[in-house]
C-alpha cells in the first residue's frame, strides 16, 4: 500500500510496470475434475454425446439384437417426430421461454392437412401450404401475447395449448382418417414415412428431415446475427435491449419459426403414424421438453447447443428400446426417463458453477 503512494504521478510511468494483457476469463485448473468441468462448459454438446455413447454401449451388451444398424436406425425413426418438435421447443427455451403448445399445434395442423386433402378435396400441396401457414399463425399469436401483451411464455402457451387442442378436436370432428384412405387419395402426406436403405440401416425421410432441420438451425444460430440475438435475449433480455437488439421483434420471429417447425413436424407425423388421428402425440409437449433438457439446453435460457436436443431425444429412444429389448416392464422406461431428466439438470448446474 505504502509503495503505491510513493509512485510518480504521471500516467506513462505508472502504467509501464503493469500487466499489458486485455481482460480475460482466467482458468487455473485445480485438478482433473476441474479441467473436465471447464471442458464441458466450453462444449455443451459433449455431455449428451457421452451419455448417448455410454447408453448405446451398455444396452448393446445387455440387450439382444440391440446393437444392429437396423435397430439403431429404427430408434431414429421412432424419435424423429419428437426430435423435430424438440428443435422448435429449443428455440423458445433458448430465449428463456417455454412452448407448451408445440405438440397441440402439430396435431392440429396434421388434422388440417388431412381434412383439407381428403374431405374438401384440395390439392395436397395446397393443403400442406395452408397447414404451414396455420403453424406460422399459431406462432405469431404466441409471440404477440408474449411481447405485446407481456404474458409469461408459460402462461401464454398453456392457454394456447388448450385453445389449439380444442380446435384440433373440433376440426377433426373427433374422427380418424384411415391410413388406407390416405394411401389412395393423398400419398404425398405420407412422404416422410417413406423408407430407404443405407447398408443395414433403414431410414425414413422423416429422419433426414430431422437432421436437416437441426443442421439449418445450427447454422442460423451460430453464424448469423439473428442467432446471436436469440442467445443474447435468453441470457439477459434487458442487456440485449440496451445493446440495441430489437428484442420483441426477434422473440416474435422465434415463436413464428417454432410454429412453422411444429407444422413441418405435423406433415412428418402423418407419415410416421400412418393415419391422421386427433389423439396422437398427447404427451409430445413433455417429451419435447424432456429431449431439450436432457440435451443440455438450460431452461433458464441463453445456454446450450441446438444439436443437444436431437441427441437428448435419441438418448430417451435408446433407453426405451434397450429396456424393451431386454424384456423389462415398460414402467421402468418411465422411471429411467425421470432420472435422466434429473441427472441432466444436475450436470448442467454443476457445469454452471464454472461461471459463478
Amino acid at each position, binding site marked *: 500500500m505504502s509503495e503505491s503512494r510513493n509512485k510518480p504521478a504521471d500516467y506513462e510511468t505508472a502504467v509501464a510496470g503493469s500487466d499489458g494483457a486485455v481482460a480475460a476469463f482466467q482458468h487455473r485448473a485445480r485438478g482433473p475434475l476441474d479441467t473436465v468441468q471447464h471442458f464441458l462448459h466450453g462444449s455443451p454438446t459433449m455431455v449428451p454425446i457421452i451419455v448417448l455413447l455410454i447408453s448405446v454401449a451398455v444396452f448393446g451388451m445387455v440387450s*439382444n*439384437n440391440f446393437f444392429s444398424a437396423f*435397430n439403431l436406425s*429404427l430408434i431414429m*425413426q*421412432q424419435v424423429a417426430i419428437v426430435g423435430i418438435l424438440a428443435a422448435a421447443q429449443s428455440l423458445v427455451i433458448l430465449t428463456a421461454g417455454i412452448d407448451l403448445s408445440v405438440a397441440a399445434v402439430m396435431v392440429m395442423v396434421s388434422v388440417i392437412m388431412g381434412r383439407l386433402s381428403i374431405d374438401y378435396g384440395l390439392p395436397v400441396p395446397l393443403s400442406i401450404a395452408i397447414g404451414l401457414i396455420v403453424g406460422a399463425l399459431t406462432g405469431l399469436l404466441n409471440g404477440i401475447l408474449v411481447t405485446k401483451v407481456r404474458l409469461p411464455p408459460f402462461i401464454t402457451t398453456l392457454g394456447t395449448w388448450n385453445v389449439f387442442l380444442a380446435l384440433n*378436436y373440433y376440426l377433426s370432428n*373427433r*374422427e*380418424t382418417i*384411415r*391410413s*388406407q384412405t390416405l394411401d389412395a387419395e393423398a400419398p404425398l402426406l405420407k412422404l416422410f*414415412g417413406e*423408407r430407404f436403405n443405407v447398408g443395414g440401416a433403414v431410414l425414413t425421410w422423416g429422419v433426414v428431415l430431422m437432421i436437416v432441420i437441426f443442421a439449418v438451425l445450427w447454422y442460423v444460430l451460430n453464424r448469423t446475427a439473428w442467432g446471436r440475438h436469440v442467445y443474447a435475449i435468453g441470457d439477459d433480455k434487458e442487456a440485449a435491449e440496451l445493446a440495441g437488439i430489437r428484442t420483441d421483434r426477434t422473440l416474435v420471429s422465434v415463436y413464428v419459426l417454432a410454429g412453422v417447425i411444429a407444422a413441418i413436424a405435423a406433415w412428418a*407425423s402423418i407419415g*410416421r*403414424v*400412418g*393415419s391422421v*388421428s*386427433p*389423439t*396422437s*402425440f*398427447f*404427451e409430445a409437449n413433455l417429451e419435447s421438453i424432456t429431449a431439450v433438457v436432457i440435451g443440455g439446453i438450460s431452461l433458464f435460457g441463453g445456454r446450450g447447443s441446438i444439436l443437444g436436443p436431437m441427441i437428448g431425444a435419441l438418448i430417451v429412444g435408446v433407453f*426405451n*428400446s434397450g429396456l*424393451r*429389448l431386454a*424384456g423389462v*416392464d*415398460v*414402467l421402468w422406461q*418411465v422411471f429411467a426417463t425421470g432420472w435422466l431428466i434429473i441427472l441432466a439438470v444436475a450436470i448442467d448446474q454443476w457445469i454452471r458453477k464454472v461461471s459463478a
Partner: protein
Amino acid sequence: MRFRTLFASTAIAAVATIASPALAQDGPVRACLITKTDINPFFVKMKEGATAKAAELGVELSTYAGKIDGDHETQVQAVESCIAAGAKGILITASDTKAITEVTQQARDKGLLVIALDTPLEPIDAADATFATDNFKAGELIGQWAKGTLGDAAADAKIALLDLSPSAPSVDVLRDQGFLKGFGVDIKDPNQIGDEEDPRIVGHDVTSGNEEGGRTAMENLLQKDPDINVVYTINEPSAAGAYEALRSFGKEKDVLIVSVDGGCPGVKNVEEGVIGATSQQYPLDMAAKGIEAIAAFAKDGTVPKPTEGLDFFDTGVNLVTDKPVDGVPSISVEEGTDRCWG
C-alpha cells in the same frame, strides 16, 4: 387444485341451499351422464344413446366429461353438480375407479341411483349397478378365433400383446388375459398381465390406445422377434398402428391381428383384412339401458339386477369377422357395420 375443489364445493353447497326446495317438487326426472372424455367416439356414441333414450322417456339429461382420459377431478365436480341439481341418477364411466367411490357414495347417500357404464368401479358394489361389456369374454372370443384360424400352427405361434398403459387398468387386464385364455395359454393370476411363462409369448408393450403407440410398440416387439405371427391389440386404433409397423417390415400378410371395440373404422379394417377379427361392444345400448334404469328407479325404486352368474349387467359382445371359426360364435362384417359406432 385444492383451492379449486374448495371453491367448487362451496359454490355447490350454495347452489344446493338455494335449490333444495326445488328438489321436493315433482318435475321431470333428471339424470346425469359423466364420461371420461367427450373426444372418444365411444363416449360420443354413449352420449348419443343416452340423449335419444332420455328424449323418448321424458328424462332431463345433463352430460359431463373429463378433459382427458384420467381427468378425475372434473368427474368429481360433475357428480357434485348432479347431486346439487337434484338428479335421480348418475351414469358414470369413471376415470379413476377407486377414487371416484367417495363422491359416488355421497350421491347414493342422497338417494341417487349410481350406475357404472363400461368401466366397473372398484369395488364393483360401489355402484348400484354396472352396465358393461364382458371384457374378459371379448378377449376370450378373439383368442379362440385366433387359435381356431391358425389350427395346428397355434401350437408354435409367436404372440405379441399390445396393451394399453403401464398402469394396467382393469379393462387392459381383462382383455389381455381373456385373449390368452381363449388362445389356450395358462394365464396364472388372471389379475396380472405378463406373469405367464408360455414360450409362445414374445412380449407385451403399451400403446396408449392410439395409432402412434400401436406402431412403436409393434416395432419394438418385432425387433425382439421378427417371426411374430399373432398380434393381440387392446383396441382398433392401436391395431391400425400395429398394421403400419408390420407393413413397414413387409410382414402384413403373414400376421393375424385381433382387436376389441367394434368402432366403424375398426370394422372397416376387418372388412379389408387389416384386422382378422374384432370383438364389438355396444356403448349406445349401455347408455340407453342406463337411462331406462334411472327412469324405472325414479318411478318405483327398482334397482337393476346383474346378469346371472356375473357381478354386472352384460350389455353384450359379438365377434365380428367374415372368416368364422367352428365353435366360436360370430357375426358378419355386414352386421357389424350396421351396429358399429364412431
